[in-house]
């Protein structure tokens, strides 16, 4: 509505009419000042309170989300920790079964060895018999002087020679016995070695168990932190979730790249099977079929990984009987191999079709057929076939990062949601405050529009106050006594 559109109060005098209009509006605004101020303040207060309330609600929602995130984080951490502890115990069990199951045998062997060694040792300690008492008596007799009697001398000489012979014999016996003892001691050496080896074996097993037990201790400590809901545990789990999220995203992107290569490898030859001119939902049927095959491979790969217990995405499969699960593992692996072989065949077919198209193009364009590079022609075909065979298995392996991604994205998205909620709460609170201050600004602006009547009103009030304050007579009024100044406190 322009100035000219306003009804003119004074015909032919638009300026004057405008002034009258302004005066009228100002007067109306002046008289409506109090209810207008109240309304503006009420609206701004209402807005501020509503927005603050909303902000509070959003903050509460954020708290709930954070609490829920924490619960999920701890639950997942607990589960992962449980899984690791179980795995460690399984490993310990394997070690015990493998190494310590033969411990009774080792013990028996050690016992036998030690008994044998003891026997041998005791045999080495056998002292040769001391010379009989008569030998000493005979020796004493043989040493009696003959006093010149030849007969006695002969007898004594004979006795002496016999004694010497007996002594020589005894010495030889001693030597033999010592030789035997040395031999026995020598025989002890391999036994010691065997004992040492057996003990080393036991030590190795015990050390391995010791390492495992340390690992279990660490896992249990972690588990304890998680169970108690300690902040250290939360920090550890959060950082682990972020790391897992980024790593799994990266690996999944690589898998997607592999999927695209796979798609390009089989989409064209699929035209031979489903036709090259039909469309499904706006997409070439051959492309849709190729995509379905790739997704099928992914699904079969997931089932295989699940039944082989590499992943735990489907609790139903995990809860299956071991025999059924094992059967499922082999069935899915067989299907995967069949699909991989089919892809390999399609890759080969793609190569043939490309060669056929090339030949047709050359014949139609009148270019003579180039027969070079025959020796290399089989290499791309072979590479395509190998890639076609391997890619389904690579896609199946994508189940591992997918599981990490699914689990960690729950945490990351939860944290992101909490951040967004906090931001929303902040914005709502800010808007509430802005609404409040805008209300105050509008009130001041309102007063600015009607500043003239307000000024007049103020003047009138001041004059009235002055009139009331002015005494009726001109006599000076007695001044009230000045209040005593308080003593300055030190």
């Amino acid at each position: 509505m322009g100035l000219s559109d306003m009804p003119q109060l004074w015909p032919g005098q638009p300026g004057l009419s405008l002034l009258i209009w302004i005066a009228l509006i100002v007067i109306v605004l002046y008289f409506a000042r109090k209810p207008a101020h109240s309304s503006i303040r009420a609206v701004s207060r209402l807005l501020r309170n509503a927005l603050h309330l909303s902000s509070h609600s959003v903050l509460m929602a954020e708290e709930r989300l954070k609490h829920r995130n924490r619960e999920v984080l701890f639950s997942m951490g607990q589960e992962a920790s449980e899984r690791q502890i179980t795995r460690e115990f399984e490993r310990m069990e394997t070690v015990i079964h493998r190494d310590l199951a033969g411990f009774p045998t080792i013990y028996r062997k050690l016992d036998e060895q030690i008994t044998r060694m003891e026997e041998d040792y005791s045999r080495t300690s056998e002292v040769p018999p001391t010379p009989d008492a008569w030998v000493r008596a005979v020796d004493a007799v043989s040493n009696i002087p003959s006093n010149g009697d030849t007969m006695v001398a002969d007898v004594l000489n004979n006795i002496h020679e016999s004694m010497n012979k007996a002594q020589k014999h005894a010495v030889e016996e001693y030597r033999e016995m010592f030789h035997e003892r040395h031999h026995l001691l020598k025989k002890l050496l391999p036994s010691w070695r065997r004992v040492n080896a057996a003990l080393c074996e036991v030590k190795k097993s015990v050390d391995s168990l010791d390492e495992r037990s340390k690992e279990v201790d660490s896992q249990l400590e972690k588990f304890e932190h998680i169970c108690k809901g300690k902040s250290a545990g939360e920090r550890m789990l959060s950082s682990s979730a972020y790391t897992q999220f980024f790593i799994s995203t990266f690996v999944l992107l690589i898998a997607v790249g592999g999927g695209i290569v796979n798609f390009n490898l089989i989409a064209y030859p699929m035209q031979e099977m489903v036709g090259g001119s039909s469309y499904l939902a706006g997409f070439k049927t051959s492309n849709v079929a190729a995509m379905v095959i790739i997704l099928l491979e992914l699904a079969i790969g997931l089932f295989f990984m699940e039944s082989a217990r590499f992943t735990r995405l489907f609790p139903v499969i995990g809860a299956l009987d071991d025999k059924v699960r094992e059967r499922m593992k082999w069935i899915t692996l067989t299907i995967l191999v069949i699909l991989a072989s089919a892809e390999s065949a399609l890759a080969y077919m793609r190569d043939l079709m490309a060669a056929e198209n090339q030949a047709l193009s050359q014949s139609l364009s009148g270019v003579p057929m180039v027969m070079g590079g025959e020796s290399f022609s089989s290499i791309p075909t072979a590479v395509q076939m190998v890639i076609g065979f391997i890619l389904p298995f690579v896609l199946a392996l994508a189940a591992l990062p997918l599981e990490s991604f699914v689990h960690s994205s729950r945490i990351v998205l939860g944290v992101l949601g909490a951040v967004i909620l906090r931001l929303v709460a902040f914005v709502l609170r800010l808007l509430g405050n802005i609404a409040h201050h805008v209300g105050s600004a509008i009130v001041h602006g309102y007063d600015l529009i009607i500043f003239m009547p307000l000024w007049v009103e103020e003047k009138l009030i001041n004059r009235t106050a002055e009139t009331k304050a002015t005494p009726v007579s001109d006599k000076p009024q007695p001044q009230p006594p000045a209040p005593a100044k308080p003593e300055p406190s030190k």
Partner: protein
Amino acid sequence: MIRKIQILGLSLAALLFTACGDSGPQTRGVYMLLDTSGTYTEEMDKASNIINFLLLKLNPGDSLAVARIDSGSFSEKDIIAKVTFDTRPSVTNQQKRGFREKMDDFISGLKSSPYTDITGGLIQAVEFLTETGVGNKTILVFSDMEEDLKKGHVRDFTLDMKGCEVIALNVTKLRSDQVDPREYMKRLEHWRARIEEGGGTFRVINDLDRLQSIFGE
């Protein structure tokens, strides 16, 4: 919850079925008319190249026909070769080879005709393309666009060219066009008016190095 899942499933199924109706990019039908009158038979090498180009560009499911323009072109007998390509690429390639052989045979034994019935050829082309049920209908006219009818033939009526794109290829300039180029312009304008009157579109491609523009590339 189960009810919600059921509703979602039904909606998805409905979406899929409705989407299945969408056939994506439409199949293409190309009908090429070859002028075999007078000295235009000398231009057959160029026509052969154009046919090769068409064979290279057409996909499984597309249709192609080549017919000659002679004294009375409104006849199936004038169709030299026609094919609707199979959906399998390997069969399509075989069909293309067969088509090429037929065209080679025709060009090698070509005899010129005394008259040029372009209108009859156009009517026959529309009829063929309508019968094939293709989505995009293209009629290529390899001629100087100078119609020369046999006495008694009636062709001065409105053509039904709805949905057809007519492309005049290699429109050579006649001796009279050299004397007065307006003759050439007038001739082309006459055909444009006739085809557009019938609901079709008309354009000229004289530079055979830009044949890609036939398919809007």
